[in-house]
């Protein structure tokens, strides 16, 4: 920013200096003279405006009729198609619009053309008078004085303490809005049950997937076997367990130490829940091997174990270790080694306890 004062060259005397304000300022000329409307002077124009207003009100009646006809004459029976619904919706809209706009524009036109349009000037009153103000302050002072709260600190302090603690029960009852968070967040349905490894199944129909089904360049949306049979908490489990299964050329995968056997023949499975705020990271680009989250555009590189290469996520997608069972079906050899989905305060603690 420039430091010079633009447009007010002091030397030329254009700046009003203190004390001179009243003299130097233009005087308020007052409200401009009232200009008469056509309808004020010409009875014909007034009559015309009157007819226009009546016409607009009449239009409103037409709108109401349109609405009623559309409501009763169009039947949304069993065989009514989308086109019928669209027609009815449009006619209800037209009807209501005419009914409302007719009244609205009619009244406004009436007010503008026929009601008196003299601008009025009204004095503002002070919001409060000096007398009241003094009295009010004195009253408050007196009230405070009569309670003696200043002279009796014991009363004041115990009252403050009591008031401060009183809302605690209210907060406590909110504590039963839900269970306390526990390690459930860190576990998914993929954990082997009774020694049986969970098979990978297609989302949404739940049929198990064979390794041979997964052709090069494929992307399968996967749920754990048995998820669809759950009666309670199905969506809760699904929200943690969904997995994206992809097959690429094994040579383009670069598994780190300890993760070499987490995939099978170029088939790898990663959690579909974004480590940012939990949208499904479901966009798989089969040539670039990038996974993209459609909500906030976090991009993960499959060839680098789903490391974040763009966007707001900070942590790689968790990988699900998979293998093939005797019948050729893909199975999860264990649960995820870390909590899936968005981070939370206890996440690291849960990860450590998962791995211990």
């Amino acid at each position, binding site marked *: 920013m420039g430091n010079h004062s633009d447009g007010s060259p002091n030397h030329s005397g254009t700046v009003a200096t203190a004390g001179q304000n009243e003299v130097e300022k233009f005087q308020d000329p*007052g409200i401009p003279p009232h200009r008469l409307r056509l309808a004020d002077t010409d009875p014909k124009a007034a009559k015309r405006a009157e007819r226009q207003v009546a016409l607009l009100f009449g239009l409103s009646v037409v709108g109401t009729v349109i609405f009623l006809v559309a*409501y009763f004459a169009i039947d949304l029976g069993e065989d009514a198609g989308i086109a019928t619904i669209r027609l009815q919706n449009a006619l209800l809209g037209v009807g209501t*619009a005419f009914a409302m706009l007719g009244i609205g524009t009619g009244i406004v036109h009436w007010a503008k053309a026929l009601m008196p349009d003299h601008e*009025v000037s009204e004095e503002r009153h002070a919001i409060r008078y000096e007398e009241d103000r003094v009295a009010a302050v004195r009253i408050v002072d007196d009230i405070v004085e009569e309670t003696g709260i200043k002279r009796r600190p014991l009363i004041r302090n115990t009252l403050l303490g009591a008031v401060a603690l009183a809302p605690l029960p209210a907060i406590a009852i909110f504590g039963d809005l839900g269970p306390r968070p526990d390690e459930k967040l860190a576990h998914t349905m993929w954990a082997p049950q009774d020694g049986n490894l969970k098979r990978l199944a297609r989302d949404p129909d739940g049929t198990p997937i064979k390794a041979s089904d997964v052709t090069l360049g494929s992307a399968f949306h996967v749920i754990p076997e048995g998820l669809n049979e759950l009666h309670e908490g199905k*969506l809760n489990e699904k929200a943690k367990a969904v997995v994206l299964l992809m097959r690429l050329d094994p040579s383009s995968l670069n598994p780190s130490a300890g993760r070499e056997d987490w995939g099978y023949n170029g088939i790898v499975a990663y959690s579909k*829940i974004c480590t940012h705020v939990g949208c499904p990271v479901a966009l798989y680009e089969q040539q670039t091997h990038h996974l993209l989250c459609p909500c906030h*555009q976090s991009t993960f590189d499959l060839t680098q174990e789903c490391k974040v290469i763009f*966007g*707001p996520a900070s942590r790689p997608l968790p990988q699900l270790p998979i293998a093939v069972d005797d019948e050729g079906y893909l199975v999860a050899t264990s649960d995820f080694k870390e909590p899936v989905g968005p981070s*939370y305060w206890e996440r690291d603690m849960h990860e450590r306890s998962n791995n211990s």
Partner: protein
Amino acid sequence: MSAATTAEPAFVAKTKAGRVTDFVDSRVGGSGILREFGRKVFPDHWSFMFGEVALYSFVILLLSGTFLTFFFDPSMAETHYDGSYVPLKGVEMSVAYSSSLDISFDIRGGLFMRQVHHWAALLFVASIAVHMLRVFFTGAFRKPREMNWVVGSVLLILAMAAGFTGYSLPDDLLSGNGLRIIDGVIKSIPIVGTYISFFLFGGEFPGTAIISRLYMLHILLVPALILLMIVLHLFMVVVHKHTQYPGPGRNDNNVVGYPLGPVYAAKAGGFFFIVFGVLALMAGFFTINPIWNYGPYDPSPVSAGTQPDWYIGFVDGALRLMPGVINGFHFEYVIFGFTLTLNVLLPALVPAGILFTVMFMYPWIERWITKDDREHHVLDRPRNAPTRTAIGMAGFVWYCVMWAAAGSDLIATHFHVSLNDVTYWLRTLFFIGPIIAFIVTKRVALALQRKDREIALHGRETGRIVRLPHGEFIEVHAPLDEYKRYKLVGFESPKVLPAEPNEHGVVTGKEKRRAFLSKWFFEDRVAPATPAELEAAHGHGHAAVEASEDSKSLTH
């Protein structure tokens, strides 16, 4: 409206309306109120109507929302759809989604009501936003209206809360993913985040409780609070009386306009029907929130273009703009064995926090800088308060950058550019956009002020070119009448207020900072034209026609 408003003992109302008025008055005593309001003066300007748009949208929301509650069932129990929309027949879904589909396809007028409700909701928040922009840029928040500005800001937040809780109710895929994002953001809060998430959702996400809980908030708590705030807001409008734009005959001691009865009441009342009519047209012809496209909520699928409604967009955009990793530094890290997720926490809280804090505090900030303790009832034209206008525009541009970021994927597909490039550009604009906006706005405002001066002193350009006898071409300038001129010159141009010592004769550090800000505020200023200058300009112009004299004008 009747003229018979007083209830003197001997007074007998003669007209029918008068007798009704008298009947009501003698039982509940409304004559004082009517006397106060019946002829109350309201100034007339189109930009004063946005608050009314918001109020009327709210009324329409209550009407259409009541209809919807008769048919909506906020249960998350599982069901199989058996309505008339074929592409979803037999699909497993929640009762909430199923009943929303029934409202759309099987209840006569249900779709229309849903669309009226949703369009009205978008318009409600949009009109509040525009109303607040108007109030800010015209300085209507100044004394005595600071508290009403705060109430209005609370209303904006409540409107957003009402919108968000409603957005989630149909339990479709779009809103479900929106809730999931909220859950992710809540979980990023240190220490208590996981607890809040579990309490809100009644356990793990998504659970079976959230829809009915949001429903209670949406139809009871939030509207009740909004109603309460509206009452407070309007009460204060009555106490303060309306502000008015500067102009001849208008000053801080009067209100110039039309009396409430009948003209203003008719216009304002009629306007309700107009707003309703416009919303009805939109609902009749334009689809909003086609929940049938999205399908039921399921944690596995997601749709491209998953965005919140516009008023939450800026937070979503901030989330998109924040990089998770910069040069190998991960914004998520472990501290004392706990996870701190700054890549979510910072963008979710900081920009919104700054915007709302500055918004709430602004009247007091400006009052402190200017030491202006007078009452203001005449508005500033935005150009006559260049620094304030520039601050407002900087904030607005900052908001818009985040807003645009929420649609980064659509910008990419519709303008055939790379999604990543859009993000890089917007990240840059996030920092420099407000600065550019501030500088440009301030210059434009000052330039407009100079133009006003020019017109006040030399008249308006007529576009008529005249050739003088000696061959010179000039454009004829028509002088202004005194009313039009007063509009251009009747404003205050405050000057820098240097630091003053306090009662102990000490210039405190705080006072120095205030003086610094005052300098920043008022250093660049254009003084209003004075009668003496007009005199000089006329003297100079000499001839009957006012020549455009660039050399003597203030353009540099």
